[in-house]
């Protein structure tokens, strides 16, 4: 989104660095309110409160403070620092950061990987960190050689002077560490980039991942560790009342059974035994208020929410007076609950011992992890360390903290280091679900077939009301407006309202969050309006996009690349802005197939300056297939409080033989970077139902399509 509601622009960043006993040089960027404890930590190179570490042997380590879950931060974050250090990526080593205030994501207010913010937030910050480091390395060389700094050049790990003197960054590190860092170091001009934007750039995590050596949460091993399988109430929110663990303890390999606040954990020396022991438990549950929840009831509640006024999130002109003028149309759309369904099921390792708590796992929100682990272990946050592994998919699920708390509780209760691993079934039935939503859309057309008024009302649960309640003000969840408040269409009269209805099931941020809900309603409705106006869907959109040249450019390129012809059958179109990136999607169906079969998806984005073009396309492609699978197959339904889906058989994922051709193009752009991790997801469903409408005349207003 263009103006992030959580952004705190008053946090002016400044630089600070220090020398260490070993002569290593570390530099970190601090927020002004960084605590004394963290400030002193920077002087200890053994701690990771820094972006850069250079040792005398010229080993250069760049710190990645965002969680690598496939979206390439393990390469793109260090690349931003390396660019200003004039270092090829082949010269650096990457380390994943621990938890510290220095790593707070200024766009989100916490050390969080999410919201497609990593590059957007890091683009200036990490380049400044690199440039400041380069500046003092050059100054240290200049001092050593008694020449002006302007005559020295830093490149490929060495500072050199025209008369032949050279020194490695490592040789200069100790002297550089004593120099004051410039507050506003000069950044390289994009024309001089040697790392950023290069087609030849490679992912730094690929070699470990293809050798089976990358450590995911599930691969963590702590000496003396037990493996835990946790029985949880079939109704989310339920708690154990009575536990009979006699039979569980008889299972070979089972070590212990411990009860925690929301479950009963069986600890064993292997997962199979833990799982078998768990199946042998006899537990009676207090199912709690959730036991009466049904899917039909939740949907009815949301639909009744349409009669509430809700919060006004956008007004232009006077939609109320104009919505009944001229030719009018009206439509209602419905989106189901969805699970994240990462490949790596939820897991976390914890060791609570000797007044300390160590958390290791696939985590998207490190400070939250530290805070909940502190509460669960009865310790202070500063006694909790958080180590982030590679994530076998995140999609928002691993922003949640339930599994961190559970692992800490199990370790504390058992007195053992543990790795808690959920089954896939646990994961699907105990997710934080993408909210169900209902959308009422109304429009009025002028005689010439232009939209003169648009009203939209979305009713759904609010993730933010649960996760970050203080951000919801006057019934307005700032994340529910994604995909609607940033509407790209220039329509003279607009009114958009959101209604929050708590239907009782827990909801979470799911890849692209509300963009995926609102884009389905808006872009489906735009097609319906085009049809009512007798216009071609592309032409109809372009007529309202004249103030958005980037939106026009991506849409026109998508038309060109897809072979779209005006009013052609079997094609569907959708476009939007999300996370500062403009995108257009055109889907072509295979008309020979008996049911819905996608032949080709053409997707064009303008994401501004692109750090890693090859992986930018990979992200878009992945998001597109994630969105396609959800649109075609997936829904979570609930009966008597129990989630009805459990695994890939009834909550399917796109497989290779179902994946259509995905043709992704990036529009060259010098705009500031936009997000990429999520923007592929939301346009697929509306483009698909729009294609089905042109092919069959049948308008689908509910997902999944289930053909």
């Amino acid at each position, binding site marked *: 989104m263009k103006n992030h509601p959580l952004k705190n622009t008053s946090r002016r960043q400044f630089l600070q660095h220090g020398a260490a006993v070993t002569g290593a040089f570390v530099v970190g960027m601090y927020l002004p309110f960084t605590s004394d404890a963290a400030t002193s930590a920077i002087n200890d190179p053994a701690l990771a409160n820094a972006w850069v570490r250079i040792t005398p042997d010229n080993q250069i380590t760049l710190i990645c403070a965002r969680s690598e879950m496939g979206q390439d931060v393990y390469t793109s974050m260090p690349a931003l620092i390396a660019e200003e250090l004039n270092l090829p990526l082949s010269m650096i080593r990457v380390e994943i950061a621990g938890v510290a205030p220095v790593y707070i994501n200024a766009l989100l207010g916490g050390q969080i990987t999410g919201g497609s913010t990593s590059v957007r937030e890091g683009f200036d910050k990490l380049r400044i960190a690199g440039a400041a480091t380069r500046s003092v390395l050059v100054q240290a060389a200049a001092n050593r050689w008694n020449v002006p700094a302007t005559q020295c050049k830093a490149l490929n790990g060495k500072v050199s002077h025209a008369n032949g003197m050279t020194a490695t960054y490592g040789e200069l590190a100790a002297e550089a560490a004593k120099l004051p860092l410039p507050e506003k170091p000069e950044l390289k001009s994009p024309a001089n980039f040697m790392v950023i934007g290069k087609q030849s750039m490679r992912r730094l995590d*690929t070699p470990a991942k293809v050798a089976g050596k990358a450590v995911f949460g599930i691969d963590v091993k702590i000496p003396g560790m037990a493996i835990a399988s946790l029985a949880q109430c079939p109704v989310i929110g339920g708690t154990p009342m009575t536990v009979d663990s006699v039979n569980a303890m008889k299972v070979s390999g089972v070590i212990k059974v411990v009860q925690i606040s929301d479950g009963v954990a069986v600890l064993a020396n*292997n*997962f199979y035994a833990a799982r078998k022991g768990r199946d042998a438990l006899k537990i009676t549950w207090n199912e709690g208020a959730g036991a009466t929840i049904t899917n039909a009831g939740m949907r009815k509640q949301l639909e009744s929410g349409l009669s509430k006024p809700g919060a006004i999130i956008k007004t232009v002109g006077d939609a109320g007076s104009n919505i009944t003028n001229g030719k009018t149309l009206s439509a209602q759309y419905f989106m189901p609950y969805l699970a994240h369904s990462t490949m790596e099921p939820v897991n976390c390792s914890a060791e609570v011992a000797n007044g300390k708590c160590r958390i290791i796992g696939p985590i998207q929100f490190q400070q939250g992890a530290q805070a909940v682990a502190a509460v669960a272990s009865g310790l202070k946050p500063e006694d909790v360390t958080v180590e982030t592994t590679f994530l076998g998919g995140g999609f928002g699920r691993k922003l949640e903290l339930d599994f961190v708390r559970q692992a800490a509780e199990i370790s504390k209760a058992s007195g053992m280091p543990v790795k808690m691993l959920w089954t896939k079934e646990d994961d699907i039935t105990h997710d934080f679900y993408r909210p169900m939503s209902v959308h009422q859309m109304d429009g009025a057309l002028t005689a010439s077939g232009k939209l003169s008024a648009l009203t939209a009302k979305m009713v759904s649960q609010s993730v933010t009301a649960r996760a970050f309640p203080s951000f919801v003000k006057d019934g307005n969840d700032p994340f529910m407006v994604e995909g609607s408040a940033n509407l790209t269409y220039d329509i003279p009269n607009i009114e958009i309202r959101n209604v929050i209805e708590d239907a009782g099931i827990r909801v979470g941020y799911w890849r692209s969050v509300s963009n995926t809900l609102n884009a389905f309603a808006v872009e489906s409705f735009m097609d319906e309006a085009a049809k009512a106006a007798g216009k071609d869907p592309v032409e109809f959109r372009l007529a309202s996009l004249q103030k958005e040249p980037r939106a026009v450019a991506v849409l026109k390129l998508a038309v060109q690349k897809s072979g779209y012809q005006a009013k052609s059958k079997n094609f569907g179109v959708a476009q939007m802005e999300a996370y500062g990136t403009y995108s257009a999607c055109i889907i072509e169906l295979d008309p020979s197939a008996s049911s819905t079969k996608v032949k080709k998806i053409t997707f064009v984005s303008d994401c501004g300056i692109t750090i890693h073009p090859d992986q930018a396309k990979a992200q878009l492609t992945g998001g597109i297939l994630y969105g396609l699978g959800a649109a075609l197959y997936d829904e979570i339904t609930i009966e008597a409080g129990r989630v009805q889906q459990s695994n890939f058989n009834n909550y399917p994922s796109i497989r290779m033989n179902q*994946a259509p051709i995905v043709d992704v193009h990036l529009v060259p752009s010098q705009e500031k970077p936009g997000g990429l991790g999520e923007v592929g997801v939301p346009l697929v469903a509306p483009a698909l139902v729009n294609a089905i409408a042109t092919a069959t005349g049948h308008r689908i207003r509910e997902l999944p399509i289930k053909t």
Partner: protein
Amino acid sequence: MTVSFNLNGNTIQFEGDPETPILWVLRDHLDVTSPKYGCGAGLCGACTVHLDGAAIRSCSIPISEAAGKKVVTLEGLPEKVGQALQSSWVEFDVPQCGYCQTGQMMSAAELLAKKRQPNTEEIKNAMSGNICRCGTYARIEKAVKRAADKLV
């Protein structure tokens, strides 16, 4: 009870519940973590290893079935095959999160053992038991073809 089998060329004597799936013997008893747990039901392929040369879902087959047989994980592939697959995967920067990729490569290894130069349809059919939630399928297809070229 003891189950004797061969893992990547080494004889292993497994002492424990013979019903334990091969996956958990590898991961929790032998610290071989390249096969991943994804679904526990043979639906996703993240746990794929070879049992006497056939790609199997190790999450769903008990270790008792491996008795007297050869279990091969990514680490134990013939060097030439492992190299061809890994270098091709690197060439196309296939992985995103990477969690499913070891299983993908084991399915690809079985395919290439059976079919020297598989066409697109054959690759899609052979690889469709392996789910990738990151959607890397197009790159996997390219990498399989490149690996096939390297092995000719």
